[in-house]
């Protein structure tokens, strides 16, 4: 599903690479944590998978597509198979929960009729039934992140990337979000989550890949934060 082969990424003007000769494979339906201190290079992996940046060396394969050689005009279509959630939610403040999710469908060419059918369903799934017409500022942090998850999942992506999705949430709310991601994982969606929230990693007991200074130092099937 996801393959990194000897991937090195050095940002311009950086003295050392953010990722240094990293090779890792993730199977379909896996739930994987990337952990490590700030600046270890774990967010770089998310950016590589989204093809926001390209690797300096090495090969990145996502959904059996070689991302490295992807023509730039094909990137948008490629991204439709990946959902993405961030620490700061990235919701549009002037749109309701429903409109935020529907926006993601409409801008990739889905009709309003499709949105009317699919959006309430996915909002129900993330536990926001009845709050469709609230604006982000009328929702709690946890609820806003649920909207973001709904938006990432509404297009039924094969992969869900989550970059510190619990970073702005209190522990109880974080666990609720994790349950949600777990439920999404059970539908067969591969989930890749970058975090340094040790509580969550320890509770979930999923595959843990630890990165330090751009290198993989641990890859454990049912790992803890360590």
């Amino acid at each position: 599903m996801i393959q990194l082969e000897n991937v090195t990424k050095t940002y311009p003007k950086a003295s050392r690479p953010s990722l240094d000769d990293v090779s890792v494979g993730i199977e379909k339906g896996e739930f994987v944590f990337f952990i490590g201190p700030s600046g270890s290079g774990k967010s770089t992996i998310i950016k590589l998978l989204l093809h926001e940046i390209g690797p300096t060396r090495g090969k990145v394969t996502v959904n059996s597509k070689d991302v490295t050689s992807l023509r730039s005009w094909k990137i948008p279509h490629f991204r439709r198979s990946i959902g993405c959630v961030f620490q700061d939610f990235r919701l549009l403040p002037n749109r309701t929960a429903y409109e935020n999710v529907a926006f993601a469908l409409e801008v990739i060419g889905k009709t309003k009729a499709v949105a009317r059918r699919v959006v309430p369903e996915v909002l129900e799934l993330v536990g926001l039934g009845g709050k469709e017409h609230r604006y982000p500022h009328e929702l709690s942090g946890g609820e806003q992140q649920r909207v973001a998850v709904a938006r990432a999942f509404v297009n039924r992506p094969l992969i869900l990337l989550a970059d510190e999705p619990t970073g702005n949430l209190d522990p109880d709310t974080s666990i609720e979000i994790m349950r949600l991601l777990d439920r999404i994982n059970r539908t067969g969606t591969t989930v890749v989550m970058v975090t340094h929230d040790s509580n969550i990693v320890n509770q979930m007991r999923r595959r843990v890949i630890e990165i330090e200074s751009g290198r993989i130092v641990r890859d454990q099937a049912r790992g803890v934060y360590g």
Partner: protein
Amino acid sequence: MRVKYVLNEVLVGLWRNVTMTVAMIITMTVSLTMLGASVLLYMQVNQMKDFYYGEIEVSIFLREDVTEAQRTAINQAIDANPLVQSKTYETREEAFEKFKVLWRDSPDFINSVGPESLPESFRVKLKDPEQYAAFADQMQGQQGIQDIVDQRELLNKVFDIFNSIQVMALVVAAVMALAALLLVGNTIQVAAYSKRREVAVMKLVGASNWFIQAPFVLEAVAAGLIGSIIGFIALFVGKVVLLDGRLQALTNVLTPIPNGNVWLMLPLLAAVGAGVSAITAWITLRFYLKV
């Protein structure tokens, strides 16, 4: 749905930044009006050249003390010259009649001049007006000639003036176009900034590039089109008010500008206005909306 969405975004975009939109339209308008005027003038000069060069004459003015024999000799030389198509002879009296018509607004000036102050002349029409120099050379040897004047030289002076007006209009058009382009670039930057969240989400969920960029490009194109329409109206009004109205006297010299030529400016200005704005917007977006 998508068309409606894009059009709505364009309208919202133009309105969100309305002072900038107005500035953009004004500079576009002035630039395109100048461009239109310049093109019209260019077409006009070509048309006038065709018209006047057919009518052109070479005037051979005779000296005041020309003798009968010399005049006859010149007359024969002209008749014998193979370059000549036709000729007329103009006496002092005839010259004075023309003079009176020409200066009919200044009777004092006419009164101070009599037929005796004006030279008699032969008016020669050449088969090919371009052959003036050869003809003048051949006639130069004759006695009793004061001066040989080619009207083409006079016309060329007039055309030179038109040409420089045309160049000036083009320069103004270019300078205003530069200002318009900078404004378009700036407007697009502001628009891209105010919609940065939407754009970020669109990129994230995989909206196609054209879908992200279309509203911005169309915003600039709309401003360009509005500018070209106002510019066209300005040209038309200018033509009606100035050439058909106040400066009608000039049109005796100017050969009238056909309305068809003015109408031709509408598609020209629209294409230039829309095309240039679209390209500028698109280039700006390449810097500000990296995928």
